[in-house]
């Protein structure tokens, strides 16, 4: 059975059910037991599973990542959470020199089943160091898995798969998704890592999205659909492993690629997708592949600075129009939004 719940609630439910299913699952991170419970995602865990398995921690992101690795080697499945991805930059040694390489480096005998939840901010004054989307970094490292859900259902299913995956998984939650509603099964199902989701079928252009950009892609595709232009929207779900088969198959059908990214353009995952498609689908392409990502500038804090900063559905429509050699007025898309440009919806009123 499924019912409509939010992305945040789906995560909370997944954590409850995963901890109930396996006593080796533990959850920790700054604030997991506090009254705000990480936007509600860790609510009730401490009360139900106890202080040993659910705990707050010192502000020490680096060591606490190593602690997860050590515990994981010995059979624990730690779920660690950071309220912003940006804080986790302190732990790159443990992540890259440790977690990512442990299995390979020690001859394949031990696994490191950790899940690290990283929340990525945007708008409403998050500013340069509370808004980074560094999935391209993680996806560059052999040994890491990188999950970027775009829907409430996937938040639950992919998080379950991440927790019970035997390798280190970075689970990236876009802050603009926490209040997105969706049909979420009550049972704990594991949505396989590495399988993209075909969100819209079409023949015009393949739009590849991830995380929040999938939401904008769907808006754009539905708008275009009303004009008789049917785009295929592929939600990657995980960017390492990345479902290349699905990407190539779709591009083979449409002959056109528009890759989206929530991170800075240069060196983005979208760039990697453009590159692979150019290399692998050369004969199938009808037009130059394209990408839309964040500008190669930090995100400013003032709402005046984020106004023209983030690409949205309008820009996707513009790009599709260009690829098809058509002129389309995308402005109705912007006009539809009844709330300021720097929030995901009426529900968000800061500060984080």
């Amino acid at each position, binding site marked *: 059975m499924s019912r409509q719940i939010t992305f945040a609630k789906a995560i909370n439910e997944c954590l409850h059910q995963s901890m109930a299913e396996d006593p080796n699952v533990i959850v920790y991170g700054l604030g997991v037991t506090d009254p705000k419970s990480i936007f509600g995602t860790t609510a009730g865990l401490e009360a139900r599973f106890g202080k040993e398995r659910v705990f707050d921690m010192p502000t020490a992101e680096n060591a606490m990542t190593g602690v997860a690795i050590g515990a994981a080697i010995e059979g624990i499945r730690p779920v660690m959470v950071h309220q912003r991805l940006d804080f986790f930059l302190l732990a790159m040694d443990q992540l890259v020199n440790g977690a990512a390489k442990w299995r390979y480096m020690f001859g394949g005998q031990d696994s490191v089943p950790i899940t690290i939840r990283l929340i990525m901010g945007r708008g409403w004054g998050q500013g340069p160091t509370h808004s980074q989307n560094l999935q391209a970094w993680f996806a560059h490292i052999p040994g890491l898995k990188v999950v970027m859900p775009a829907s409430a259902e996937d938040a639950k299913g992919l998080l379950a798969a991440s927790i019970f995956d035997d390798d280190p998984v970075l689970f990236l939650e876009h802050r603009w998704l926490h209040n997105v509603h969706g049909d979420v099964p009550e049972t704990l199902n594991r949505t396989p890592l590495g399988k993209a989701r075909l969100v819209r079928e079409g023949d015009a252009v393949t739009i590849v999205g991830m995380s929040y950009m999938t939401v904008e892609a769907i808006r754009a595709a539905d708008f275009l659909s009303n004009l008789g232009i049917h785009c295929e929207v592929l939600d990657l779900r995980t960017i390492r492993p990345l479902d290349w088969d699905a990407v190539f198959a779709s591009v083979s059908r449409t002959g056109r690629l528009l890759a989206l990214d929530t991170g800075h353009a240069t060196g983005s995952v979208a760039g990697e997708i453009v590159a692979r498609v150019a290399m692998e689908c050369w004969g199938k392409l009808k037009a130059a592949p394209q990408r839309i990502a964040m500008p190669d500038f930090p995100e400013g804090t003032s709402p005046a600075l984020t106004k023209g*900063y983030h690409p949205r559905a309008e820009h996707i429509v513009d790009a599709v129009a260009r690829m098809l050699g058509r002129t389309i007025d995308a402005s109705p898309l912007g006009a539809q939004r009844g709330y300021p440009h720097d929030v995901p919806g009426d529900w968000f009123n800061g500060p984080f």
Partner: protein
Amino acid sequence: MMDKALSVRLLRDMLLIRKVEEGIAERYPQGKMRCPTHLSIGQEAAAVAVGAALETADLAISTHRAHAHYLAKGGRAPQMLAEIYGKVTGCCRGRGGSMHLTDRTAGFVGSTAIVGNSLPIGTGLALSLQLKKSRQIAAIFFGDGCTEEGAFYESANFAIVRNLPALFVCENNLYSVYSPLSVRQPAGREIYKMVQGLGMPSAIVDGNDIDAAYAAAMAAIEHVRSGKGPFFLELTTYRWREHCGPNFDNDIGYRTEEEFLAWKARDPVASYEARLQQQGVPTEELAALHTQLDAEVLAAFEFAETSPFPDQSEAFSDVYTDKEVSPS
């Protein structure tokens, strides 16, 4: 009583911070200050004690909770408020918001939003001063939570090894967001003593008692300026309002109303004003101070509210010093 002019100055600085921040708290719900904002209401004495004891030429750096440090060091209120409002007249032209303050004219170099991040940078400021054989010192403001970061430990160690002119100023307000010390630090730890164990001289003082705190700050600064190396000053204090934002939140369960009330009873600003009055500062003088500061603060908000926003194009500049460099 201390020197009267000094006392009034200390009161003035604390009142300025209080009034600016109460002004923020009042206006924040209007939704025009669109950035995470951490108020120091209740902690003013700690900031002012150190800020006033420093010279203008001394350098300072702080964290996410920086308003008080910025103002106490002499940073300009209008530019700070404009920054929080996201205006081009803000001290960072709107790029940084409340957590990124700077006023180079006042020696306030900057504040950053990652816990522990500004400690090594402050240590580097001290290194530059040492290299230049300057008599200036670098003051590094931070909270109790910051001392849990490896960056703190590494900074302290290096400052000792190189005998740097760095003053580490720790405001221990018992919490990191909603987390009490007990889940973050060993039971019974006294931070300033732990730091002595690292090899840095230190002291602790009541951060709600401005006279005591100022005296401690003067002694600490004298130590650092005289070339004896870094010093760690812990000031015990308490934040009145929520970690981030304008509200009171004693009802949500991480701390008790009683604890808050006990600290509120020790309001560093009101208690000092009362003390000065007792000690003979005329009521009219104090009233005039209030009037003057109220006007100043109002004008600062006026400046912030009426200043223009940055042009959208400002989102796309200043990543590199060399304007020729294409950022992508």
